[in-house]
């Protein structure tokens, strides 16, 4: 069992135990929500993983390496921010894409920029949630204020990687 699996199971057990010892049978409610999530999401995640697997053969890896690889620098970070902002769909699409990019030779800073841009500007969420509930003006104000964050996250990651955290 690897570190990620261990961490997730430990966390699940800990929050489950907290829920169990709280009054109001919260753990039953939590299990129900978890089960519903599992039923709705796992078929989608499975399909998304197959998409990622097929694309891993279709995407030219040398292109990924030269666009987002270690040598790509700030240009790679900016490009990744742009691509991330226009990636449609939820996390079950975005994370498999990130894995494939990683395995095809993308460096960590562009990947961080990609994931940050996708989290901030995912337009399915803007259309289904933000505009109906908050309106256009808030949406525009938020997007303008957040525009610089994905490249910043990428550049900060590169700085941390080279100066502090040389393990990755």
């Amino acid at each position: 069992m690897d570190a990620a699996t261990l961490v997730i199971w430990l966390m699940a057990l800990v929050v489950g135990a907290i829920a169990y010892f709280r009054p109001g049978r919260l753990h039953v409610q939590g299990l129900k929500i978890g089960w519903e999530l599992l039923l709705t999401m796992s078929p989608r995640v499975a399909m998304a993983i197959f998409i990622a697997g097929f694309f891993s053969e279709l995407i030219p890896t040398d292109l990924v390496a030269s666009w987002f690889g270690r040598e790509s620098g700030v240009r790679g970070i900016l490009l990744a921010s742009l691509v991330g902002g226009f990636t449609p769909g939820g996390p079950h699409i975005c994370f498999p894409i990130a894995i494939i990019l990683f395995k095809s030779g993308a460096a960590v800073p562009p990947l961080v920029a990609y994931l940050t841009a996708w989290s901030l500007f995912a337009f399915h969420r803007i259309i289904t949630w933000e505009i109906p509930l908050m309106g256009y003006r808030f949406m525009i104000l938020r997007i303008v204020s957040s525009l610089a964050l994905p490249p910043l996250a990428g550049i900060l990651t590169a700085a941390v990687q080279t100066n502090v955290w040389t393990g990755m």
Partner: protein
Amino acid sequence: MLRAYNFWFGSVQNTLFSSEAQFLSVFISGNVAMPETTRKKKIALLTDKSFLLFSAIALIAGVICYARGKAVFLRSVDTSLSMLLELAPRVVAAFFMAGFVQVLVPKNLITKWIGAKSGFKGITIATLAGICTPGGPMIAFPLIAALYKLGADYGALVAYVASWEMLGITRLLVWEIPFMGVKFALLRFTVSLILPFLAGMCTRKLASLFASSLYSKDQT
């Protein structure tokens, strides 16, 4: 100043909730009425648009792979299956954890935290609250809307949204650690910690800029 704010943000608040009663129900329960209807058809795979769309894309990509040769196709299926085997145990635990976290974090508390404070303190609290807010957009956005209605500071609101989107605990534990690993997730999380502050500060600047320019236009 106030008039300009109303010009920019007033109409937004009107579109938020059609009635005060609806707002109150959202505020109390932290949920818009819609989850009830979506929950009923949970297992019906054939009506799940996302699943159908994904299947269609997978099918097309698979056919293209097969057209490139049987070896390519088999290799890609092998990649997918090993990824599936690697991720399945993590994702299962992650979903149950998400369920527990969702019932444990009281939504009213988050609303109280951000609603009451503004300025730099408000942005700090909003960033922390964004990290702690569990669940997907169906949980977070009604909450944000409720805060908006309560008159929370715009800087704090944007910091809250940015923090939830970049650092939210569900995103981190359910998706990022299972897919990208602990090291990557930790590195990204630490690096991104200051970013919601920047967004919040930027929003406050922009909001006051808009407000003053609109105000002077009103005067002349």
